[in-house]
C-alpha cells in the first residue's frame, strides 16, 4: 500500500452513521483539556497568592531561574506547535500526506529537545541549591515557596510533554506505515493536546523566568 492509497479518514468513522458527529473526538479532547485548565489553573492561583503576599521573595527567586534556557525552550515549543499544526494540514491534503510522518517525527524531536534542555536546567538548579530542602540557597521569605511552585509546575508540565512525545512518536510511526487508525481526525485531536501543553508553557514563561529581570 502506498502513501496515497489509504483514506484520509478511517472508514470505520464513516460507518458510524449520522448519529456520530464528526467532531466527537475534538469535543472529547476539549472537555479533557477543560479539566486540565482547572488543574494548572489551581497551581497558577497558588502562584498568584504567593506573588502578591511575598513579592520580594518571589522577585529574588525569579532572578535565579535560567532565563536563556527558558527562552530557548519557549521557542522550541512554539516551533513544535507550528510543526504539528502543519502535520495536521498535510494529513488532510492527499498530495502532501508523505510529509505527515516526517513532520510528526520532527515535532517529537523538538519535544524531546525541550525535555533535554529542561533536564540540564534542573541539574544546574540542584547544584545551585535551588531545590526546596534543607540548605536552600536563598534566605528571602517566599523564595522557597516560589521554587516549590517552580518545580511542581514545570515537572507536571514536563510529564505532560513526555506523554505528548510518546503519543506523537506513535502517530509518526503509524502514519509512516499507513496504519488506518492514524487518520487526520485523530492527528487533529492529538495536536490539540500538544498545543495545550504549549499554551501552559506560554504562561509559565513570564511567570517563572521574567520576574524582576530589570533590577
Amino acid at each position, binding site marked *: 500500500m502506498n502513501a496515497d492509497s489509504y483514506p484520509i479518514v478511517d472508514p470505520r468513522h464513516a460507518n458510524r452513521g449520522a448519529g456520530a*458527529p464528526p*467532531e466527537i473526538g*475534538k*469535543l472529547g479532547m*476539549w*472537555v479533557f*483539556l*477543560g*479539566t486540565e*485548565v*482547572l488543574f494548572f*489553573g*489551581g497551581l497558577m*492561583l497558588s502562584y498568584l*497568592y504567593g506573588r502578591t*503576599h511575598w513579592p520580594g521573595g518571589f522577585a529574588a527567586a525569579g532572578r535565579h531561574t535560567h*532565563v536563556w534556557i527558558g*527562552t530557548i525552550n*519557549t*521557542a522550541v515549543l*512554539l*516551533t513544535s*506547535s*507550528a510543526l*504539528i*499544526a*502543519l502535520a495536521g*494540514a*498535510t494529513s*488532510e*491534503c492527499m*498530495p*502532501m500526506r508523505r510529509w505527515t510522518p516526517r513532520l510528526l517525527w520532527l515535532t517529537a524531536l523538538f519535544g524531546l529537545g525541550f525535555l533535554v534542555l529542561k533536564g540540564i536546567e534542573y541539574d544546574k538548579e540542584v547544584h545551585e541549591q535551588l531545590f526546596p530542602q*534543607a540548605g536552600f540557597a536563598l534566605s528571602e*521569605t517566599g523564595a522557597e515557596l516560589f521554587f516549590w511552585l517552580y518545580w511542581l509546575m514545570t515537572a507536571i508540565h514536563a510529564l505532560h510533554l513526555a506523554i505528548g512525545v510518546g503519543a506523537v512518536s506513535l502517530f509518526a510511526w503509524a502514519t509512516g506505515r499507513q496504519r488506518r487508525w492514524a487518520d487526520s481526525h485523530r492527528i*487533529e485531536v492529538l*495536536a*490539540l493536546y500538544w*498545543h*495545550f501543553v*504549549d*499554551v501552559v508553557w*506560554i*504562561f509559565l*514563561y*513570564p*511567570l517563572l523566568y*521574567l*520576574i*524582576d*529581570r*530589570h*533590577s
Partner: protein
Amino acid sequence: MNEADFRRRRRRIAIAWIALLALMLTSLGSAYLSLGIGNVIAGLVIATIKSSIVVIVFMGLGRSSAMVRIAAAAALSMWFVLAGLSGVDYATRPHEPARYQSPRQLQPLTGKENEP
C-alpha cells in the same frame, strides 16, 4: 483539502509562528525595562495574545462547531469562577506568618534524663 487550501493554511501557520516568536522576544525585552507593575501586565498580556494565536490558528477553535467552542468557553469560565471564589477566602485572610524555624536534630534519648 485541495492544494490551494493547503497552501493558504501553511501560510497562516507560518505567519502565526513568526508572530509567536516575535511576541516571545518582545516579552523577553520588556522584562529588562523598568516598568514597575507594567512588567507583570506586559508579560501576561503578551502571554494571552500568544495563547490566543495558538488557540485560534493552531487549534482551530474558530473553525470548530458551536459545541466545541462552548466546551472551551465553559472550561475557561469555570476557572474564573473558581479563582474568584478562592480569592474571596485567600485575599481576605489576615497575613500572620510564623517565624521560620530551621529543622534540627533532637538530642538522642539515653534513659537518664530524669536523673538528678
